[in-house]
């Protein structure tokens, strides 16, 4: 056992890096995704158009390419700035995941009945109050389950950051596997660690979904089918009537 103990520290470090990367990207991606999703539901055509390009472009490019692009292009785009590998990985994952979250947010906003917008407006609420207190809380019920799915996929996809030399959990596993000549055992351990992180998150998604359904009394059939997950899905976009 003593032989294996020396590998615990690098593995733990890798895990810590993966966790840090994923937390930054999940938070960043969710914030950007929420904003882009709101933009996709804007009443201003130009904003809708720009946000649609953003989501469709990023969803059409493999994560690996986005990663390599941020790693090589970012220093060229912003001369003089130094980006750590963690920053590159986090930016790439944030961009990637925000595009998917934006689509889910858009679907969630579209699931809120028109009358809710009108009732909020009739009570004198401005754009911020309407979305903050009326629309977004109702959209959350629809957004959270697929959101957890996206974050889960992102945690697993984060293993790709090893290509830019960032020592995350996967990269740590690679190094240990090569050093010990026990790649199979190492990757079983690494895989188990990913599973232990991801499984509870999936459970959380189910629990949250149930809790919201209970508090709202009646489950509402919401179709997030092909229209909102299709890469080319453009229309119909939510129009906030009366807000110009």
């Amino acid at each position, binding site marked *: 056992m003593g032989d294996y103990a020396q590998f615990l520290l690098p593995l733990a470090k890798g895990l810590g890096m993966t966790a840090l990367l994923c937390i930054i990207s999940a938070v960043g991606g969710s914030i950007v995704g929420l904003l882009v999703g709101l933009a996709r539901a804007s009443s201003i055509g130009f904003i809708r158009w720009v946000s649609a390009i953003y989501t469709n472009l990023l969803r059409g490019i493999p994560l690996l390419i986005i990663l390599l692009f941020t790693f090589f292009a970012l220093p060229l785009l912003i001369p003089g700035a130094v980006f750590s590998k963690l920053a590159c990985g986090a930016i790439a994952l944030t961009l990637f995941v925000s595009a998917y979250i934006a689509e889910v947010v858009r679907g969630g906003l579209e699931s809120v*009945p028109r009358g809710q917008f009108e*009732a909020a407006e*009739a009570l*004198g609420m*401005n754009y911020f109050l309407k979305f903050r207190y009326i629309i977004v809380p*109702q959209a959350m019920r629809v957004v959270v389950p697929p959101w957890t799915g996206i974050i889960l996929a992102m945690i697993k996809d984060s293993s790709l950051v090893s290509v830019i030399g960032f020592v995350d959990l996967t990269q740590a596993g690679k190094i240990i596997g090569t050093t010990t000549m026990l790649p199979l055992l190492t990757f079983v351990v690494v895989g188990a660690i990913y599973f232990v992180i991801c499984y509870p998150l999936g459970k959380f998604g189910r629990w949250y979904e149930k809790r919201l359904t209970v508090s*709202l*009394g009646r489950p509402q059939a919401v179709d997030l089918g092909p229209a909102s997950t299709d890469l080319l899905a453009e229309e119909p976009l939510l129009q906030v*009537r*009366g807000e110009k």
Partner: protein
Amino acid sequence: MISVKGLQKKYGNVEVLKSIDCEIKPSEVVCVIGPSGSGKSTFLRCLNLLETITAGSVVINGHDLGNSKLDRVLVRRDVGMVFQQFNLFPHMKVLDNVMIAPIKVAKKSREVTKEKALELLAKVGLSDKADVYPSSLSGGQQQRVAIARALAMDPTVMLFDEPTSALDPETVGDVLAVMKRLAGEGMTMVVVSHEMGFAREVADRVIFMDQGYIVEEGTPADIFDRPTQDRTKAFLSRVL
């Protein structure tokens, strides 16, 4: 209080309101009747900016709704709206439904608002429902909460868009009773409704609309007992 001149509303090429002229005085209760598609709901929605006005002018309490620099929030605080489908916020308890606008829009304190909200719920007969979610209420109860929610902003005008059309017959009476009481207290009300009995009993004035025009208006007795226009007669013969 409300002055409408030459109001026109188009959706693309479809002219829903052709030319509406109408004056509504304080404390007046006006019922708007007419066949579906006559533009009565659109007319009502123009009064609180849920629809943009194509042409003509609407002035409410001195606010010209056609003015592009208009503060929508100020107008809407003055104008309460009750919808056919209630549109209560399903993620909030009844009390919070009533309290949200005064607190967040009018920036009133929680204590004052809560006291007022409980008073309003008592007024609509739903004191015991303050802590439940709207989904556990009947349609009539939900509509009465919606009325309380609109009243919480202290509006000077209340608009009702077919408030009883989505209700079970046995709950209609409770809602109409609340509206009748409100009228008795001197609230200015514009009611789009198919409830001819309510119009006859409570309205000061009845407006009959058809195909985007006001065809005829007058006291309930004028309209229901002595209609002068053929279209009014035809409509009334079908609904009465």
